[in-house]
């Protein structure tokens, strides 16, 4: 007898989808725990980890933010292979403002977000007319371009970089600011994609021609998404600049491009929660693998391939499915 797996929504999922969610604590807990639990876990980790692992948590947050920015672009049909562009531009905007004009970090970080976001949007605007692979090809080149530009033109410190930047005024901010920002972006993006505006973006991802034929100017939408994603990416760069008190050519390194993609693929593309989960898995893993040096990037590459081929959904959709549905074997008639 041939059998197949049948998946059915759990009763509690169906009940809590509408107003009956308010009928009992159990339903409300079912709804709220996936949202509250990550926040509690992150806060718990931030408080109780050792200083070394707190630094790791910091880079988890930074890479989580970059992954969210990547996933936002991806959900609008733009596959970026150059997240380090956003990271680097943000870092350089904050670094130069602080170094040459002595701006306070509280001023440079928002400035880097907005100005850097606009800058990246303007650079990438000619590319929004390209689809899929063509867009990826060009984003792959841009970070290398800026790296070489700084080296060749000897601007902003050239190969030496800018050192002696101002740190954040309170040391506890170095951990809580990126974590808070990560959570805001995570829940903000999820809510945003659930709105009508997000629906149009999903439409662009699925079939841009039909969105166009509905009389919607997709370039404006894409430009807005670009701005949002690059501003978020620039925050990560600007923030790290004030933690390392240094900005230089390494901010355009391949790590900042490849790790966000790897975390998104491992965690689950197109869910926002998945990329963050991926960052929580991959960044500590890369910390453990630090003794292997350059072999880390090899592992990322292998991870990408293995997950893309064997587990294309990623981890988060798997967990989500288990949480919302149950499975049983039924006979095929």
């Amino acid at each position: 007898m041939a059998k197949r797996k049948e998946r059915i929504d759990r009763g509690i999922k169906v009940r809590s989808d509408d107003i009956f969610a308010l009928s009992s604590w159990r339903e409300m807990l079912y709804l709220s725990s996936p949202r509250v639990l990550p926040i509690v876990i992150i806060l718990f980790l931030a408080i109780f980890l050792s200083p070394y692992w707190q630094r790791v948590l910091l880079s988890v947050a930074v890479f989580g933010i970059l992954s969210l920015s990547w996933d936002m672009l991806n959900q609008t049909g733009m596959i970026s292979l150059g997240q380090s562009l956003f990271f680097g531009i943000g870092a350089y905007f904050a670094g130069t403002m602080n170094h040459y004009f002595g701006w306070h970090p509280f001023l440079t970080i928002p400035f880097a977000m907005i100005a850097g976001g606009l800058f990246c949007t303007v650079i990438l605007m000619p590319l929004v007319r390209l689809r899929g692979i063509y867009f990826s090809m060009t984003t792959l080149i841009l970070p290398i371009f800026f790296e070489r530009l700084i080296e060749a033109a000897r601007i902003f410190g050239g190969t030496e970089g800018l050192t002696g930047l101002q740190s954040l005024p309170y040391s506890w901010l170095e951990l809580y600011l990126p974590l808070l920002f990560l959570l805001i972006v995570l829940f903000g993006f999820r809510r945003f994609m659930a709105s009508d505006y997000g629906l149009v973006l999903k439409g662009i991802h699925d079939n841009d021609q039909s969105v166009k034929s509905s009389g919607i100017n997709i370039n404006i939408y894409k430009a807005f998404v670009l701005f949002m994603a690059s501003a978020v990416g620039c925050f990560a760069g600007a923030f790290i600049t004030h933690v390392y008190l240094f900005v230089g050519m390494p901010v355009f390194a391949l790590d900042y491009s490849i790790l966000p993609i790897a975390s998104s693929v491992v965690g689950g593309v197109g869910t926002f929660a998945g990329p963050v989960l991926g960052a929580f898995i991959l960044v500590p893993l890369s910390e453990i693998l630090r003794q292997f040096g350059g072999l880390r990037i090899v592992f990322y590459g292998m991870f990408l391939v293995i997950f893309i081929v064997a587990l294309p959904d990623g981890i988060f959709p798997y967990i989500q499915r288990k949480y919302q549905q149950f499975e049983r074997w039924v006979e095929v008639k």
Partner: protein
Amino acid sequence: MFLSTIVLGFINSIILALVALGFNLTFGISGVANFAYGGLYVFAGLTAWIFINIVKLPYIVSILLSIAATSLFGALIYRFILQRVRGIELSEVIATFGIGLAVLELFRYLGFYGFEYTLPVMFEGSINLFVVTVSIQRVMIVIIGIALAGGIWFFTHHTKIGLAFRGIAQDEYTALTLGIDSDFIATLSVAFGSTIAAISAVAIFPLGTISIEQGYVVLINALAVSIVGGLGSTGGLIIAAFIIGYLQTFTSAYIDTQWVMFVPPLIILAVLALKPSGLFGKQKELEERV
């Protein structure tokens, strides 16, 4: 000065075209993205080096073996990885990019970089071309480049398999109804693209040392030439290679060597802003670019 720049620019352009031909054959003509191209290129160079210096095989044998190994590697990549994610753009890009990255960084980790990693030239010596002395290796590159470009044009227009390559890019389902096994053809196309990567690697690497960075540079140059020329058009690719090649050579001759790196991205941005389908792109003009 000017005449010698013209000659060197010609050689540089042919090098660019040679590098881009393989990428264009897999991606432009058959529609299979191969971001592992740079990895395959360095793989070919280093396997040739290993065959010559560690296994101590004769030059010709090692080069043929390395070309065969690279082609096989390409075919295996398609058969075991790409075939499973075929048609999903995101997965294709990420999987091949991941493979290329893993190959390149693995070689870097194993320590395959430095001055001792050079391939021997095919023929020693140099000849006088009008005003400049050019090594025979460069002349060989020009000959190989022209022969390959002509060969690929003939292959994709006048042989059954070549026509099938173009068929699966234009419409895979229609190709299937005409009895073209699209998976087999795509495997071949990745393998042939890798063959060309290997040929260009053994031809070009003797000009300098085998460096890991070359893998990334080659991928970027191939992308630049393909985007500017318009994908799927071999003629456009050659013209784009000449535009980029001459601009690079003139930049290095009259401005500064370190600005050469900026030529490809700037041209890409300019071309995309003015004519998004590339200078001569016809295929999939509507479908691929909005």
